[in-house]
């Protein structure tokens, strides 16, 4: 379930963003605390300079850091959008109290529902159409991508890609009542051969 053990490009991009932010945060924290502690032992006392403390450290410094971080964040976010691609597979994830039902979607055709297991091909982009039948849930497979809420009356789209075949744990991330804790599922990413077999079997 770890967000830091990515199994696909989306989760990897976010994990990179996290490590980058962590490094920056540690540096800023250390610097600020050093200033704070040095203030207790500083020898030269006198009126503090507004230019230095307020305009320099208070305004210029955070502005620079934040603007660069924002640009980075926006670019990552843009890359994770479900942009048009030739070989996208569409699946539907239906949240309900308290299980997830999944179906393959091809145009207007929908496959049979599998409960608690979502089958996807590995190495191909997958768009999950996230819906809900009752209350709000949230579809989350931390090793593959961020989460997307399942909201009644609405369809949200989440782009996933599993680089390698395997089993990835998923969970409902939005509190949905008494069965929320147990509202878990798996994503199984298949290699091309087993995906073809599966596709034949279901349609």
């Amino acid at each position, binding site marked *: 379930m770890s967000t830091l053990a990515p199994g696909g490009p989306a989760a990897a991009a*976010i994990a990179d963003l996290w490590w980058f932010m962590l490094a920056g945060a540690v540096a800023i924290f250390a610097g600020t605390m050093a200033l704070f502690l040095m203030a207790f032992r500083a020898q030269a006392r006198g009126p503090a300079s507004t230019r230095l*403390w*307020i305009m320099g450290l208070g305004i210029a410094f955070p502005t620079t850091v934040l603007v660069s971080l924002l640009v980075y964040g926006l670019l990552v976010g843009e890359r994770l959008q479900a942009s048009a691609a030739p070989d996208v597979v569409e699946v539907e994830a239906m949240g309900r109290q308290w299980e997830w039902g999944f179906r393959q979607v091809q145009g207007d055709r929908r496959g049979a529902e599998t409960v608690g297991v979502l089958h996807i091909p590995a190495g191909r982009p997958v768009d999950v159409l996230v819906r809900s039948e009752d209350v709000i849930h949230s579809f989350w497979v931390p090793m593959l991508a961020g989460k997307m809420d399942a*909201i009644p009356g609405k369809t949200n789209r989440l782009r996933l890609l599993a680089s390698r075949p395997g089993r990835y744990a998923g969970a409902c991330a939005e509190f949905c009542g008494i069965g929320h*804790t147990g509202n878990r599922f798996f994503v199984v990413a298949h290699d091309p051969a087993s995906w073809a077999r599966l596709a034949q079997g279901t349609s």
Partner: protein
Amino acid sequence: MTALRRHRALHAIWDRGPGWRGALATVNHTDIGRRFIVTAFVFFCIGGVLAMLIRTQLATPGSAFVGPAIYNQIFTMHGSIMMFLFAIPMIEGLAFYMLPKLLGGRDMAYPRLSAFGYWCYLFGGTILVLALLFGVAPDGGWFMYTPLSSKTYTPGINADIWLIGVTFVEVSAMAAAIEIMVSVLKLRAPGLRIDQMPLFAWYLLVTALMMLIGFPPLILGSILLEIERAFDWPFFDPNRGGDPLLWQHLFWLFGHPEVYIIFLPAAGVVSTVLPVMARSRIVGYGWIIAAILALAILSFGLWVHHMFATGIPHMALGFFSAASALVAIPTGIQIFAWIGTIWAGRPELKLPMLHIFGFFVVFIIGGLTGVMLAMVPFNWQAHDTAFVTAHLHYVLVGGFIFPMLAGAAYWLPHFTGRRPIERLGKAAFWLIFIGFNLTFFMMHMVGLLGQPRRVYSYPEAMGWTWYNLLASFGSFIMAFGFALFALDVAMQVFLGRRSQRNPWRAGTLEWAMLLPPPTYNFASLPRVADHDPLAADPDLATALARGEGYLAEPRHGWRETLAGDMLTGRPEYIVLLPGNSLLPLVMAIMTGGFFLSILGGVYVLAPVFLVAVAACGWRWAWRVGQREDLGAIDAGCDLVLPIHGEAPGSPGYWGSVLAIVADGTLFATLVFGYAYLWTIASGWPPPQLIAATPFAAGLSVIALAAASLAGRRAGAVPATAATRRIALGIGSAAQLAALAALVFEIATAVPPPASHAYAATVMVLFAYAAVHVALALLLMVFAWNRVGAGFVSDRRTAELRVAAMWQDYAAVVTLVVLLVTKVPAMLS
């Protein structure tokens, strides 16, 4: 008059009186403030015990300590108690206790309102806690997302308890917001310019403004959800034109500013305590004020960062992401101003400073993780995990608890008149600090490892066990720390040695009095020129006690204090404050009866209690005022001033203006909700619109215009009592006609409200207009009676102006309601 005789005379006027009756009837700000603080601390302990239960349950995988049903109640109540029953009331208590003393006044602007607010808070909080004891506590999480909290998925009373209890408590927050603003703006010591006020007053002024604008969206949301639950009006039901996300917008429109409402007063404590501990003056006073204002404005534009995963288009998210990151700048300004202040001084690591150190460490980490969460892609991973729980506690405990502990260490001698015992306090600090960091640092990590929030259990195989165990261990260390803190306070209260007058050698006015403070604060009021008056004049306290300031002579049993110009502090009039009264308690009980009858579903009783509340309000307003003009009277130090009833901008007038601001915000959010559903929700345009016939609507507009004119005529100067009564009579008749027309519309033109969110919203809009016309009618009839009883003269017109103001407001909202409902109907 000697200092002692003056003390006795003033004390007799300001004291609360003996026994139970005195305790129930007191309206004194020191009493009320203390009460808020103690009650909030009790709720903190209850919330803390719930937190310990949470951590006990999560300590080990597959724990069977409590099941999910109980667990959901526990974390919902923990969050709700901490936010609504602890943090906000603690702020109110500190403000009530401190502001008049800091600003050189004798009480807050509306003492009876403070008392009323306290009782509402106590009763609302009691409802919530009793529900916990009976096992029917709210269990939908502290943000109560629909449709989980709608009737279908929460059929029990749990959600109603949250909606009613919290709204009841909110009444007190709104009252406090208005009172704090008017007190800071008007009731400052003579000569205290607004740009020279102590920073703490600035922080509270901005906080109160944010409460005034931030709470109405939640109150509106709660009203709508309660109506949906009670009468099946589908505001949030996607199958009938509603939208569950409307709730989220309303909630977070309140919820994000709420976080700053909690943080700002705490930052105000830091800005007050830190310079004293550092033995220097605050760096960048003007910049800090600018930063607070920027925070207040920005914080209303960020709410969507709680909804990054709801499927809103990425570009829109980018906007809110940028705005969220930008709040770090005004926060940065304050942080570095504080550090610069320490650099400039000779800091001493006394107990308050130690807590400020804790604040720095914890709050900066919370701020940094906050910036991380503002980045949309990272938010998609971390949202709704233990990482967010960790972040929010770093911000709230760092940004509120540690500053409050600093404030407690700093002001306890003021509350108790006794010296602190440093040792115990320091041990408490380290236990809290270490325990806290252990608990919540672990939760960051386990969140990144995929642990969602609000889960009552987890399998061993997840690899989360050690983190959780350590987190729980840390929380018990922290609990010991708080126990030690409570012990420290108790020891100081009961065993501490008497403190001298200004133990920290601080510069602000609250230290210019005996400790513990006398009921009237200052025997005479000082003229103040800047934010640290004691720094320039350390003997001010004795001079004031000798009666060398304003209003030094007790007379007629009046509770007197001074009010001045909002900007310059130039004295304008003497405020005669009302004395002790049981009315606040009675009115709060009636308000409680109203809420309980809704909670119990006994809807027939609700209007009965409403009438009782109105009757209390009538009596409340009737008991103040003068029947003759007093003219300008002596205010001491060669100053003569009128009393507030004879001055143009009396506190009541400004309170009314602010109440309309709050009410107008609620109305604006309602119209926003209507527009939001119309454009976003599915199932629109609605199957059936309101009848397009404009006659009744037109009649109500014309009648209200006439009523507004009549209201204006009644307040004109000069005029005889007879003319005023005729104008008020005509105005009331017009209001009655307008009300009838609106009721006719409601009864005949609006489609059945349970059929579609459109019909439900339109119905609420009309009801809103009708309620306000009724309120304006009540005020005008009241004014008519007051004129008859001789309370109004050419010099004393405040009540007429207030009645006219509410009439104008009712006219405007009715016009808006008619436009937004009838125009689309006529066009289609």
